[in-house]
Each structure stands twice: as C-alpha cells, then as structure tokens.
C-alpha cells in the first residue's frame, strides 16, 4: 500500500501535465471548429508549462527570492535546499509570452478566415473551397 502511494505521489503531477498535453493535442488535431483548435493550443502550452514547473519544485523549500538579500554582507551562507529551482521559472516566463503571442496571431488569422469564408468550421470551409 505504502509503495503504491509513494508511486502515485511521486508522479501524479507529471501525470496531470501529460494528460493535459494529450487533451490539448487532441483538441488541436481533431476539433472541427477553428476556435476550439486555438483553445486546444492554449491548453497544450499551459500543460507544458505545468510540466516544467513540476520539475522545479522541491519539497521543504521556499519561493526563489533570497530572504534578507538586500545587503551584500549577510549572504555568506545561502543553503540551496531552502529555495526552489529558479531556472525552469525563467524558461516558462518566456514560454508564457510566446504562448500569448501565438494565440494573438492565431486569432487574427481566424478572424480573417471568418471574414473571407463566413464560417470557422473546418468542413464547411473545405466545402466552400471545392465549389
């Protein structure tokens, strides 16, 4: 029992991230409505960010801001175990920005498609092309 619990606890955050990645990917590929595809994209990207943040977490640690770090004198002994890993946070800040940038561009193209074809359902657009 204890083993199973450890197994679940040690991995469930990664599981959630991977499940969300799969949900997002399914939405991006299989959904018929283009806005739903964009929503899937947003879910996909956040899920990857969750994966990275799960990497950065350390138990028994604190937020990555050095306490009493103002003066130069009293930083002599900083214990790395007291702070979570800051590097993935930095990477994910960049990834969030990239995510919103892609979202904006996708929505702009989507509005343009609606203006040209009058619909954002993929199958209807394909039909209107064939005609």
């Amino acid at each position, binding site marked *: 029992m204890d083993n199973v619990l450890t197994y679940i606890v040690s991995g469930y955050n990664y599981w959630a991230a991977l499940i969300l990645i799969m949900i997002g990917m399914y939405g991006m590929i299989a959904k018929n409505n283009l806005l739903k595809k964009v929503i899937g994209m947003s879910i996909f990207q956040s899920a990857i960010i969750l994966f990275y943040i799960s990497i950065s977490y350390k138990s028994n640690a604190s937020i990555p801001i050095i306490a009493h770090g103002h003066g130069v004198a009293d930083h002599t002994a900083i214990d790395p175990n007291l702070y979570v890993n800051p590097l993935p946070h930095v990477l994910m800040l960049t990834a969030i920005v990239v995510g919103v940038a892609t979202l904006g561009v*996708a929505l702009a193209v989507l509005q343009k498609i609606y203006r040209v074809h009058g619909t954002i359902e993929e199958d209807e657009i394909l039909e209107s092309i064939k005609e």
Partner: protein
Amino acid sequence: MIAAQTPILILLAPLFSGILITIFAQKSKNVAFFLLILGMVGSFSAACNVLLQVLQGSGPIHYRLGDWPPPFGIELVIDHLSGMVLFMVSGAALLTAIYSKHTVEVEIPDRIHHYYTLYTLLVSGLLGMVATGDVFNLYVLLEISALSSYALLARGRGLAYIATFKYIIIGTIGASFYLLGVGYLYIKTGTLNMADLSTMLATPEMHQSPSIKIGFIFIILGIWIKMAFFPLQGWLPNAYSCASTTTSCLIAPLMTKVSVYIMIRLMFSVFSADYIFKTLQWQQFMVWMACIAIVVGSVSALAQRNLKRMLCYIVVAEVGYMVGGVWLANSNGFSGAVYHIMSDVMMTLCLFMAVGAVIYKTGETSLEAMRGIFRRMPITAAAFLVGGFSIIGIPPTCGFFSKWYLITGAIETGQFHFVIALLFSSLINAILFFRIIEIGFFSPFDENGHGTHQVIVVNEAPAMMLVPMVISAASLIIIGLYTRFLMSNIVQWTIPVGL
C-alpha cells in the same frame, strides 16, 4: 576588438534594422528598403568575417553573452558547419532583399515597412537558431522565425489564410514538442547548454534511459514538422505556394534547410552518433522514410500544373535527400547531406527567383506562363535552366556532386533502395524540367497560334531582380567547380566523431 564581437553582429544587424524601420520608416518605403539592405549587408559581411575566422583559426568560436560562463549563461558557438550555414542564410537573405524591391511593391501595396520589419525579424531568428549553443534559446528563436513567417505567409493570395492557420497549428505542435523534449532532457540532466548536455548524455545509463529516448523522439518530431519531412509534409505546399513571391523566395530555401541544420546539430552536438546509430538503431527505418519522402515529393511534383506548387513538392523531396544522407550513418552520406544544404539553398533560391520573375511579368502561375520564355526573358530562362540542371544533377552544377556523395554513401552501407530513390527522383526532375523547356521553346507564345510568325520583343524583368538571380545561378556552377576545395576546407571538418 571588433573581430571578437562579430558573431553577435550577424544577428544584431538585421534586428536593429527591423526596429529602426518600425520607428523611423513609417512614411517612406525607400527609407525602409534602404535600412533593410543596410541590415542585410551588415549581417552578410559579419557572417563572411566569422566564416573566415573559423576557417583560419583552430576550433569553433565561442561567444559568451553577458560574459557569463557557458552552463550558466548562453553562448553562441560557431564551428565550420554553422559558419557555413550562417554564410549561406545571410547571403540568400541579402539576395532576396535586393530582389524584393519590385515584387513587394506590386504584391503588397500597403504597409511595406511592416513587411520589411517582419522580414528582418525572420532573418535574425533563422541566423540566431544557427548560431546558438543553448537548447532553450533555440526554442525562442524558433518561435520568432515561426511567428514572422506566419505573418509573411498570410500576406499572400487565394487560400493563404487557411494555409497559414494550418501552419500555425502544426507549427505550434512542432515547437511545443520540441519544448517538451527539452524538458525531458532537462529533468534528467539539469542543464540546457548543448556542449554540457552532450557530455552528460554520453554515459551508458543515460543511453538506456527511456526518458532520454522520449526526449529525443519529441525533439526530432518537432524538428521534422518544421522541415516538412515525409508523413508531416502536408502543410508546406499549400502554405508556400499561396505566399507572395518574395516570401516564398525567402522562406522556401531557408526554413527547411535551417531545420535540417538544426536536426544535424541536435543529433550530433547534443546526442551523439553513438547514441543514435548504436543504441537506437533507426537508420534502416529512417532511410526508408527518406526514400518514401523523395518518391512522394517527386511524384506529387509531376502532378502539378502550378509552377510554385511544383517547386514546393521538389523542396519536400530535397528534404528527403538530406535526412536520408544524415541517417545513412557514414561519412560520405553525411558530407553529401551537408554539401546538399549548401547547394540546395542556392538551387531553390535560383528557381523560386526565376519563377517569381516570370509571374511578375506575365501574372500567370501555371506552367503555361513559361511559353516563349526563352525569347521573351532570355536571362531568366537561362537562370531557370541552370537551377533545373542542378536539381536534376547534371555535372558542372553542384547538384551533381551532392548526389554523387549521397549515392556513394548509400552504396557503402548497402542501402540500395536509397540509391534507387535518388535516381528515380533525378529522372522525374528531368522529365519535369524538360517538359517546361519544351513549353518554353516550342509552345506558341500567342494564344491564336502562329506564334512563330510574330516578332517577340524581349521583355525582361528589371535589373534589380535579374542581378540576384544571376548571382545565385552563377553560384550553383561555382560551388560545383570548387567542390574539392569546399569538401576539404569546410565539409570535412563538420563530420562528427563516430561516423
């Protein structure tokens, strides 16, 4: 002092020209064009300088950004391979920039300065991807080049928006896969620097780890989507053929080639030949995939009646050449692939420029636009011919030599299906181009027949389009003639350890 700083100047020149265009050139398109050319010339000269430094010096150039030592900060690494690709990319971007003056004014009537800004951003993204030595930085630059290419592709004709939307979705999947793969590598090693990663991944336990394998698969899948390798190639022909002439001249030669370069870089600078060819052992499967890619690309090209679409499918087939060459897992195949990156940039550039000039003059995009081309536009036709010969692989041009090395490599490993695919594709390309030559020479120019009686005036494209086109065509022959020199001075040095 300035010599030590040139690696970063390659990127900064286009970036700054882009920003300055947005700030200062909102009114005048001539100022915008001038700034664009300035940036491209700056970037190209810096790339020349860096390439010379690499060729003369010993070992790769490392440039520390912010003076932080590598695993903590980001560094640029320029060795023979990336120096060569930087040179080709900045050179092609400069040629296309000169070429773009007339076509952009016709095809993109308003907001030319925004078009130019996005152009410079795309170029700096591509150059940055080539120069960087950090896997996450590569992702950021990948996204810059992707976002700017969405914008450039969307400003096209016909179904450009739908094609772009598809490209956005599939491109985001690719980039996100890459990011996820980097996450898997990071979780197992704790570093993002390429050199550091490769030392940490060299241990046997890392070779056996399923997470590393998943990371590798995600990274490679992401890059394959970007380079339109066989099962994932669907987005490319639509997106590129709907684009405007300048856009396709810029993106079609560079995007796929830079992606191939990144695949090579990640395969051999992050992972190792040992891991890929001894632990994973996918080479048989991959070479088969490359064969299918070549055959599918060539046959689809044969079915097209639209000039640009035809060239797009040829691009798909060419990607198969390079991927197959790399996965042949021997030095001849590898050098064939690297040499092919170099020559293919120029081949596709030359062909797209020639076709763009024809479209600019006639307004048609079908094969029929080529009627009477040899008399109407002799210089364009000559450039098109040289490009076509190079794609087919006729000796003085560089296309012959890259195929030669690829075939030698395939025979060495006994993968005869790859040889057959290459020869088959040459045959198809020969049919394609001779069909166009036939249309060009023999079809009557006038719709009413009796074309032979008419006096056809030479109606050539403007000089600013011809000069870059002729330079690219000439470079095909020059690269071909100096094959031995290039092989011993550049390509030979790029062969990774273990091949």
